[in-house]
């Protein structure tokens, strides 16, 4: 395996200082960096502390107007090879800040990117939030959450098993990052996903002039050469 430089981006929605969410995210990131380095790669790790984006959140939610910090966060995620996304659980769900941040991103920003999902809570009764709620959000975004979800409630911080699970998740992330899955999907199959002009964080700027809509735009008719999507009779 040749040496690569990988970019890991950690998104933490913890709001206290120190924050157990940030702590869990940092541990997972640290392990993922160490594992990738052990495997002969170099890693650039960046953290997006969503608390710092809070002042720009209202305009992003109401007007899709991304402020400078949002813009930098989106650029970092767009370039990321792997992501660690961590949320505190409030009222039986990932925090509003966490969900809001991922909801305002373009649908195609994270396609195929491996993600460690992590959550913290004050009680073990929130344990399924990672797998039942956060995993669904990232499935919608066509991201690739690693099989092991991380969850830490108060008692987990004194249990060595949490460290084992972090190792597991970090290893899964490292292997997926190393596989180049996201890049290969982008290279080979990008056009099969739904995009809009300027999506994928402002990078999706290709315009296909040879489409049905473009033919209609230039005085043609939808009836000319219109084919059913699964018509295999020609070509």
């Amino acid at each position, binding site marked *: 395996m040749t040496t690569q430089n990988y970019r890991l981006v950690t998104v933490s929605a913890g709001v206290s200082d120190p924050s157990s969410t940030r702590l869990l995210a940092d541990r997972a990131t640290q392990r993922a960096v160490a594992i990738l380095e052990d495997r002969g790669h170099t890693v650039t790790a960046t953290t997006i502390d969503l608390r710092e984006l809070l002042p720009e959140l*209202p305009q992003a939610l*109401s007007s899709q107007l991304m402020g400078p910090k949002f813009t930098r966060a989106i650029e970092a995620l767009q370039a990321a090879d792997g992501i660690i996304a961590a949320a505190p659980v409030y009222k039986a769900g990932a925090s509003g800040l966490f969900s809001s941040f991922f909801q305002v991103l373009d649908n195609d920003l994270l396609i195929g990117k491996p993600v460690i999902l992590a959550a913290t809570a004050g009680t073990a009764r929130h344990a399924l939030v990672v797998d039942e709620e956060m995993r669904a959000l990232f499935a919608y975004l066509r991201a690739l959450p690693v099989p092991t979800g991380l969850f830490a409630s108060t008692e987990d911080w004194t249990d060595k098993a949490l460290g084992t699970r972090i190792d597991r998740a970090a290893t899964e992330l490292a292997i997926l990052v190393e596989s180049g899955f996201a890049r290969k999907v982008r290279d080979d199959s990008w056009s099969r996903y739904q995009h809009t*002009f*300027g999506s994928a964080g402002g990078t999706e700027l290709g315009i296909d002039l040879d489409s049905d809509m473009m033919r209609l*735009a230039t*005085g043609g008719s939808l009836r000319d050469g219109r084919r059913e999507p699964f018509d295999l009779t020609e070509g």
Partner: protein
Amino acid sequence: MQFGIMSVSDITRDPVTGYTPSEAERIDAVTRIAVHAEEVGLDVFAIGEHHNPPFFSSSPTTLLAHIAALTERLILTTSTTLITTNDPVRIAEEYAMLQHLSKGRMDLMLGRGNTAPVYPWFGQDIRQGLPLALENYNLLHRLWREDVVDWEGNFRGPLQGFTSTPRPLDDVPPFVWHGSIRTPEIAEQAAYYGNGYFANNIFWPKEHYQRLIDFYRRRFEAHGHGTQKEAIVGLGGQAFIAKNSQDAHDQFRPYFNEAPVYGNGPKMEDFEEMTPLSVGSPQEVIDKTLTFRDAFGDYQRQLFLVDHAGLPLKTVLEQLDLLGGEVVPVLRKELDAKREPGTAEAPTHAARVTAKYGDEEPRQPRPNANRGDNVTGGSPYQDSEQSVAAYPSM
């Protein structure tokens, strides 16, 4: 270069006084605003089209024809006319009528609007919004250029030997702008037909609009209508002007904070920094507006949004005094001085008549006699070419 104002026709509670105008008051107010736009030396008045409260402008051509009768120079246009839910046949008829009544002082801007529920009210499907817009314009284009149209498409019944009346004034179709802020197909259609392209330039940073305007300019050239510089670009923008910056901010802030669409979201200062909004002294508004040319190239029409979000009539008329008295004269001078040679003039009916006919008299279609069936057939006008062979009767 043409300067003017565009209204969305919203009837919004004044957040300072708590007063909500009646529909009757707001319709009268908009008429006065349009007339005053001409009085202060502006060139263009545009009205939107909506089919639900709190808007009144369901019938733009009626309003614009009334304003045309009260003014002498002002160009009347729309921002926008819904090319999706209106039957293109009705658009062809109504706007040709407006063109006659205003003696050519009109054009129109086509858009898809921002109101999803409007589609079913007119029997259409929002999922087909884009193909509807594209196909409808393809038909509209022909209805204004061919006396007799045979047509078949996906979204309305076919036409056989149809003539849209009245024919355009001087047989020169109204100029069309295609408004879009995110759809390459609309920019491509504008470029294909050599029509104008308008970006509302309200909500987002300039980079967002630059991409499609650049694309439109390149495609305008590719389709053989002239150089990229000759492409015809219009921009929106919004301004609030006072003698000094602090007063402008103090006066506009309550309206900004509760404005439809972006109210209760961004801070006004952030919005000013990130979007084309300018709030300030005449000089500040001039400086900000001059940056549009730097970003988008020489352009032909600048429309400001000045009457929304519950601003009372008196304030809007004062805004027009400042816009027409102190801002636009300087902008005209500065933009004229900077303008690169070889750019297009802003579109007017007179220029389009000259372009088509030179020194010759424009065509004035005179109908043939009614054959008794209220259908004029293959050659509806005395000078129209036969589209169906007519054999001599015995």
